[in-house]
């Protein structure tokens, strides 16, 4: 098993843990944590393919990941703001109760 495969297996496991956390948890912040894990699994894949791919241009994967981290930071800020707004609204952050925004 070469290092690339090892990296891919690791990132897949990380993604599965993040997905399970996002699906299983009722707490808004923990769901956001799960999402964060899944994004990091994807970032790991970018780095791995860049590092182990013969003839890749210098720093491509790193730049991709840095962009992704920046976007994720912005998205997390919005997500946390939503959680705070949710708390103000219903005095807790249980997603199962935040179901009134439907069509």
């Amino acid at each position, binding site marked *: 098993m070469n290092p690339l495969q090892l990296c891919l297996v690791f990132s897949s496991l990380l993604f599965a843990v993040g997905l399970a956390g996002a*699906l299983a948890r*009722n707490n808004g912040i923990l*769901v956001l944590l799960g999402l964060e894990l899944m994004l990091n699994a994807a970032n790991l894949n970018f780095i791995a393919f860049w590092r182990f791919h013969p003839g890749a241009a210098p720093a491509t994967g790193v730049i991709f990941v840095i962009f992704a981290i920046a976007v994720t930071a912005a998205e997390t800020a919005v997500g946390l703001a939503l959680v705070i707004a949710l708390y103000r609204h219903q005095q807790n952050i249980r*997603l*199962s109760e*935040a*179901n*009134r925004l439907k*069509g």
Partner: protein
Amino acid sequence: MDSPADHLWLIPALPLLAAGLGALTPRRGRRFAAGTAIAALAGSLLLSIAALHEALADPAAHLYHNFSWFDIGSGVMRLGWLLDPLNALMCVMVSLVGLLIFIFSLGYMDSDENFARFFCFLSLFAAAMLGVVVSNSLLLLFISWELVGLASYLLIGFWFQKPSAAAAAKKAFITTRIGDLGLLLGLVWLYNSTGSLLLYDGGGGVLEGSVLGALAAPVLAGGFAASTGISLLVFCGAAGKSGQFPLHVWLPDAMEGPTPVSALIHAATMVAAGVFLVARVFPLFSADQALAGAPLHALTVVAGVGAVTALMGAAIAVAQHDLKRVLAYSTVSQLGYAAIFHLLAHAFFKALLFLASGSVIHAAHHEQDIRRLGGLRGRMRATFATFAVGMMALAGVPFVFSGFWSKEAILHAASAWEVSPLPLYAGLAGVVLTAFYMTRLLCEVFLGAPRSPAAAHAHESPKVMTVPLIALSIGAVALGFFGTPAWPWLQSRLTGAEIPGRPLLEGGGLMALSIVLVAIGLGSGWALYGRRARVAAAAPDPLAAASPRLFSFLGAGMRFDALYAATFGRLNRFGAALADVLDRRVWGGAVATLGRFGELTGFVNSVVDRLGLNAGFDAVSGRFRGAGRAYSRRQTGEAHGYLRALAIAFVVLALLALIGGRR
């Protein structure tokens, strides 16, 4: 080019303006309405006198001012004003008598709540009448003529709450309309054959030589001239307005209006309009005289109708009991004489008589039945004196009163007419009857003892009513001196040629005869009614006692109303019934069938709409609604539900990628 005729339009325009203002005046603006009406008419009077002064400077000239009204095709319809002595005299007469009657109305209509409206109508009437007089175009004359008819309708029906007044107004309007139809046809014929309706137009007017000559050429079958036909049609209109036989029936009924209206319209001015029209277009009437071969001359018909009217009106007047109706039939009779001098004189004394009777009626609380009046001489001295003046003028008491001279002139003309002596005989008979019935009227109303409480409590009318009476009685006397045979000032001014004065007693035989006849009339009237005055309202009339059937025949106006009801009325009813049947059966059926057809198409339309179009649209929109509902059911708002769907989709995609990778 500043001719006096240019400003002639002001004469009718002033009262018209007053009528317009009066129409805008609210009911409480009594003083304003009456003030403007009287001021406007006084202005017209001054202008008329100025116009008369201009016209008399050159009596033979016809000053006119024509202007084009509108273009029809290649032709131009032109209107205009005319100034000559005939017009100017009529203007002065209408505005003077009108003014006096307006002033009289101040007193007579004092207690009427529609005082302002009354003056508005009076002004409209005066404007229309003056319009008839000054127009130089038969079209303009016809327009004013119809306005006169309208104003007369409004004024006769002024007390329209009374069914009899409303009916009388309708009768007057319809009867004169029959005559007006003839007039209109005459105008159309005239326009068709000459292309102009102007009276004087520098040689091209219908009353000027060349056009008249063409009209008088015999063109119709039987040797009639076109001018005869036109004249007779025009005469229809004149007869309608003047209450000539056989269209006289409206005039007595018109007495339903307020008495000043009777005086203004049905004694002094409107009925004079017909005679004026004949005098105005006299050249047209006399155009066929030169035509020896014509079987009928227009003037023969006019004279015949006049003679019949004069005699018949006088005979009916003898047997009337209503104060105003006696005077109305007397008007019918006097208009039969139809001459301008007599007309001017008649306007004064008949207006005087009507106003005096108005004064009586006003004083006697609207009691008009002469059998229930009586004994008013002592209590109403001014009214009695002026009434007596008017009565003597009308009866033709010799030498002092205008009626004598004007009637004398007519009798002379009739005796000189070689076609037929009939008009002369009718005129002489009319003289006797006139003197007789006027004496009867005077005796019944003013002499004897009062025969009802109203008459017993009568008192003299206010100054505003008696002063016009006195002014009119002066006119009734004075006007006579302008037309005596010795000094025929008026006649020469009217014809435009100097007529040499004749010695007063030339043709003295005829004059003596008529004086004797007047004396017979007065004497027999006095013998029957004055010497032994009526003692009770229910006592029979001496004449009725002598010949009850004749008296009741005359009392019913020779049963003309019944005759017309039996002939024209029945014809009309038959036509109406026929039209009714046609309407119900034929036209009604056709309309109903069409309606059913429309209903059927409407029904088909609605079915198609409901079952076809609506059902289709409903089905389609139902589908959309169902789909939308199904989608919205998926939106639960559960964040985890959405995440779960994403995860499942992801797993499915991953599996697909795996399977695809194997291939």
